[in-house]
């Protein structure tokens, strides 16, 4: 016979006792400055109530309630009378969802998204166009024509499959290896090139390193180098989407290495507790530069962390564009309908070097890379699927390769010929308006250049 009121008091008691123990033993509790002011109107009552409940709790301690449910506010669980540590399940981890096999054959017809020929061709063309652009820009960096580049080899399927499952109005936060998302959304080759060349057409005004793309029109938030910083930001943007009742979702991409950053923890936890319509999309490609995943984490990858945050989670075959598409589409639907976060871990392999400043043969074997490039590649898998349906043949492949190469080369040459932005742009957009001190610095540079222009590459820049 325990009336509700007793139970409530016990709950309070548990909380208070826990707090006291923490304070005494661990000194890790944060005690709030409650009731500190005599001028605070509600405080006398408040303090009386507090005093009562504390003493009430102390007297409750002697109350013996046998075999009941734990009342701790921090978790909902049963008691257990045997000592047993929970063991992580890393040998047999979360399964990898797959729709088609390595030969492009649908495994379970009920999972076939049954996309139209037109859509599938678009997938294929966007993936291969990205691949062509990667090859040309990678080479151009080797020749010193651009300063830096990062390819997307092997991860084209994760980009296109997920991008296709989103609404174009959904806001994208990325890391830096998601150029295929922009490609799918129709970002022009000229603007990819303008950014890498930092020429006067670059939307970012030539300020960031290559591959730090962004597009307001395509709802793709500008990339920045610090890893994982976009994760809690994406959670905040998703919260705003919910508050604005916009029916939009946010997707946030990051690598498995970035998931080790504190900001990943922050973003996952915030989006769960604040109920944000967001999809966290982790590209687990096995490496963070030279660091293999067994030096990155010891749990069952990234997907296994999701449930710890109270987050719906799934692991997909990142080389299977349909598996990526299905998972993203369902996550998007539910995230918006239910205002809760979803985590997708796409298993894949980073076929290329980390970047043009990296030689990956220093830390992994060529055989390993070759396996993924030749045996299990998202592009070849989709091509098998298309060929089997008679949607694609050698002729089409040849002519598309030629055409895509021509498109990329033309944009490349246009970008290379274009001047760099005006040096004035060094000073704008630091703030919305230029502070007086910054204006003076700009004028100082101008007059300096008038006097010393022969020592600067002024001819390469717009006037």
């Amino acid at each position: 016979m325990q009336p509700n009121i007793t139970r409530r008091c016990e709950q309070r008691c548990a909380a208070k006792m826990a707090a006291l123990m923490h304070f005494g033993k661990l000194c890790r509790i944060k005690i709030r400055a409650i009731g500190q002011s005599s001028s605070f109107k509600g405080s006398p009552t408040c303090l009386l109530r507090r005093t009562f409940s504390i003493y009430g709790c102390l007297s409750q301690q002697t109350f013996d309630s046998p075999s009941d449910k734990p009342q701790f506010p921090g978790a909902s669980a049963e008691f257990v009378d045997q000592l047993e540590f929970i063991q992580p399940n890393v040998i047999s981890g979360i399964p990898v969802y797959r729709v088609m096999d390595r030969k492009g054959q649908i495994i379970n017809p009920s999972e076939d998204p049954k996309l139209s020929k037109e859509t599938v061709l678009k997938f294929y063309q966007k993936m291969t166009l990205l691949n062509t652009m990667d090859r040309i820009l990678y080479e151009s960096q080797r020749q010193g024509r651009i300063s830096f580049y990062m390819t997307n080899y092997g991860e084209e399927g994760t980009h296109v499959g997920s991008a296709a499952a989103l609404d174009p109005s959904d806001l994208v936060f990325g890391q830096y290896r998601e150029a295929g998302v922009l490609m799918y959304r129709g970002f022009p080759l000229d603007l990819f090139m303008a950014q890498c060349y930092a020429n006067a057409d670059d939307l970012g005004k030539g300020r960031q390193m290559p591959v730090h793309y962004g597009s307001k029109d395509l709802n793709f938030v500008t990339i920045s180098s610090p890893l994982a910083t976009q994760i809690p930001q994406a959670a905040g943007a998703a919260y705003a989407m919910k508050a604005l009742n916009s029916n939009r979702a946010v997707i946030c991409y990051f690598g498995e290495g970035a998931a080790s950053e504190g900001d990943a923890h922050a973003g996952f936890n915030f989006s769960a507790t604040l109920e944000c319509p967001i999809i966290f999309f982790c590209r687990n490609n096995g490496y963070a530069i030279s660091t293999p995943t067994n030096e990155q984490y010891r749990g069952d990858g990234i997907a296994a962390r999701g449930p710890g945050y109270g987050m719906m989670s799934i692991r997909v075959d990142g080389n299977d564009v349909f598996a990526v598409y299905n998972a993203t589409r369902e996550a998007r639907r539910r995230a918006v309908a239910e205002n809760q976060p979803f985590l997708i871990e796409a298993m894949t392999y980073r076929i290329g070097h980390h970047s043009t400043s990296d030689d990956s043969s220093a830390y992994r074997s060529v055989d390993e890379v070759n396996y993924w490039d030749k045996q299990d590649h998202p592009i070849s898998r989709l091509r098998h699927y298309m060929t089997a349906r008679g949607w694609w043949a050698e002729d089409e492949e040849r002519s598309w390769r030629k055409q895509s190469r021509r498109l990329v080369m033309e944009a490349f040459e246009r970008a290379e010929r274009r001047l760099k932005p005006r040096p004035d742009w060094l000073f704008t957009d630091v703030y919305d308006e230029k502070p007086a001190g910054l204006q003076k610095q700009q004028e100082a540079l101008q007059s300096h250049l008038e006097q010393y222009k022969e020592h600067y590459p002024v001819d390469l820049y717009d006037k």
Partner: protein
Amino acid sequence: MAAAARLVLRTASGAKALRAGLGWLGSPIRVPHAAAHFTFHPDPVPTRHGPTQKMNLFQSITSALDNTLSSDPTAVIFGEDVAFGGVFRCTVGLRDKYGKDRVFNTPLCEQGIVGFGIGVAVAGATAIAEIQFADYIFPAFDQIVNEAAKYRYRSGNMFDCGNLTIRAPWGCVGHGSLYHSQSPEAFFAHCPGIKVVIPRSPVQAKGLLLSCIADKNPCIFFEPKILYRAAVEQVPTEPYLIPLSQAEVLQEGSDVTLVAWGTQVHVVKEVAAMAQEKLGVSCEVIDLQTILPWDTETVCKSVVKTGRLLISHEAPVTGGFAAEISSTVQEECFLNLEAPITRVCGYDTPFPHIFEPFYIPDKWKCFDAIKRMINY
């Protein structure tokens, strides 16, 4: 980690502390406390902004936040423990009035709070984030310096987080020791792209906070926590703006310019009176108000007139913002300076507990500095 160790700050200022009475467990607790190192004198009642009400500093903050939530339907307030009113009571009543979707607690994670706030702002809503103590803003340093400050610049003005304001209690409080006393403004002064603002009083706090919220750049607003209860004056109930990047000359003078911000303004005001009385020295007192981008013009104009400059802040002297002011004034006013510019600041130590009375740049240290400058 930093946040895990935070303690109670039971009181906000000297004399009031002893009257505060009951503590956390409902038993009377006396907090040992030295006399306050400053005296707050309210400014004249402002008449330009309609009806006023007696408010202390935390109440004027609440008033500013209330005005914002009522006029801007996108505005949200969040941080650790803001829902029940905040550990300093700055958000009392706002959740009841505007709903739990607009005033809400976050998990205990500063990098998350600022990152989340940036995201809210990027999506076009108004984000007002609270960091519980300025001492705990450092976990968010990366989000502030690498992200918030550079968002507009790096995207070529396609994206920005100008709608973000970060509020944080700031400065010494008598017994706050290492992690409830810090004045970290100089760390942020080295970061182009953000604004850093510190008020000296309830009227200034409300007007400057509303300007920070309205400003189209990410702002950090440091609230001198020792003034939360100690400073009481008539504050307009309607919204009003006090311009950023504009210093205020509080008292005109002809012999020495005194520059300070936050609580230290009250210290140097008293020092000015002492200098007048004991030395016959006429001091010009300037409240800098905005640390970044700061008002060089007002300060330099004053120094051209007086020929002497004393800058005082609670933060440690090396790399403190006084160094920036000093160097700039030396460049701009070289021919007018009659004595070396003097900095009276905290020592280059962590902020100590029991030694606080010896640590802070109090009125006697400032007074002595003026004496030496005049006799130079």
